């Protein structure tokens, strides 16, 4: 069956290509998969991990170092691979992809780092009162981590870019994080925002990949997910 479907050009990227792309992205830009407040984080700050502020501790002007690492990120385009088991209520429908990952969240428990006080903050220390150090836990710290399994489904998106073309990307519609009890909805909201921000950074100008061979190309249809591929159609002008 013809692939171009009435258009001049068809381009399809298999899910394997997307997963290779995620690996290439992680290799070239590891910080997009690793966010940490020093002393957590390994390697060069700003290169190997994205420097984030500590998690504020209420009642203090200090925070606890935190890190979040995205492990084992994997995309699966419809139809689902045999090994994919999405937790209810997630169902992989037409034109959708599944995303699975493991999030590793770590605290440097016992460590508190002073945080700058916002200029309009009313909780300023009295300079004449005795100095109050942030409470420490026996002066000892420990790195405590938890791994969270994440499942999500989403759909492809196409948005205008700054050079007159269109970027093709992926967007999460629904995410599930298990075994976090009453915090589930909070963590799901936070994780969905984080993953969508990462996917925004992975958007790609569709006119460029391979289709750059043609002098002038405009996206005519798609993106569409089917047959384990992300498909687009374009016309040459």
């Amino acid at each position, binding site marked *: *069956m*013809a*692939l*171009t479907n*009435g*258009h*001049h*050009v*068809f*381009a*399809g*990227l*298999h899910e*394997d*290509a997307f997963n*290779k*792309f995620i690996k*290439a*992205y992680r290799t*070239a*830009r590891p910080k997009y998969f690793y966010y940490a407040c020093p002393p957590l984080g390994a390697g060069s700050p*700003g290169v190997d991990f994205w420097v984030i502020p500590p998690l504020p501790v209420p009642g203090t002007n200090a925070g606890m170092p935190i890190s979040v690492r995205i492990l084992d990120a994997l995309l699966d385009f419809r139809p689902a691979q045999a090994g994919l088991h999405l937790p209810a209520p997630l169902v992989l429908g037409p034109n959708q992809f599944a995303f699975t990952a493991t999030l590793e969240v770590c605290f440097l428990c016992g460590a508190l780092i002073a945080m700058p006080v916002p200029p309009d903050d009313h909780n300023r220390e009295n300079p004449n009162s005795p100095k109050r150090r942030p409470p420490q836990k026996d002066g000892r710290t420990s790195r405590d981590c938890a791994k969270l399994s994440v499942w999500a489904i989403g759909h492809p998106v196409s948005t205008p870019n700054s050079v007159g073309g269109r970027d093709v990307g992926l967007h999460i519609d629904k995410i599930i994080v298990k075994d976090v009890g009453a915090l589930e909805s909070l963590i799901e909201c936070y994780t969905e925002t984080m993953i969508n921000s990462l996917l925004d*950074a*992975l958007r*790609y100008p569709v006119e*460029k*990949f*391979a*289709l*750059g*061979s*043609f*002098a002038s190309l405009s996206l005519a249809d798609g993106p569409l997910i089917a047959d384990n*591929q992300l498909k687009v159609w374009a*016309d*040459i002008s």
Partner: protein
Amino acid sequence: MDATIAVSEPGVNVVLQKAIALAHAASSDTATWGPFQVGYSASVALSGGVAVLENAPANKLDLNNVNVAGSVSAFFTFDLGLILPTICIPPFQVCVDIPFIGNVCTPQFCIPWPSVHVAVNLPFAFGLSASFGFRVDDLGTKWGIVLLIDPFSARFDLTPMGPLIIAAIQNEVSNTLGSIPLIGGLIAGLVNTVIGAFSGVLTPILGAFSSLINLVLSLLDLLNVNIPYTLLTFDKTQTFVPTNIPLLGDAPVNMTLALLQAEVLDRELLAEGQLA
């Protein structure tokens, strides 16, 4: 395969029409045939044509009815004295040796034949059909899907040019001879003598014109049997996200197009690539 690109038959036609619109070339030459010196140039341009894809295993592109149009501009220079007999009036000269005076001859005028220059412009047009095979070539930093033209014979016929050239020469020779006094009754015969001489070399001259047109056609990469014509190229290193996007200092995200293969399926040019 990781990536699939398909180009429909209309899409291939759009790409080829862009190439055809740029296909024009010219060349020139000079040669001597007997008393005739000939300078000639040919220019050729392509237009139109319809590409038809033939599915695997043929894996071919047939380009039909391309309009090949151009012209041969030629000038012929020849000295009539090398072709026409010497003509003197009166034909004979009588000389006597007179003592104390010397040799005395009756008056005689021999016609000095001039040189003739004839310029002609000969437009031509014909339809050309050619068949191409596909191949993927390693072009260094790129993969190229190239067209390889099957050897073909251009179907152009220059024989209609023969009478046109003869008529132009006949006209110019008549005008030239007509300006010479006292030979009015001889002009027709003299012109026939020149045309008779020219007719003897007309065939090799037309052959030379054909050779030049073939040479000019071979200057068009699309029709050169020795130069694969690159239809599409794909960078081996595909930059999926460029440097400094979205943040300053961000490294580029590159992937390597490690393998590319192409065939014709369902009358589409299908290219499949493997990323690494």
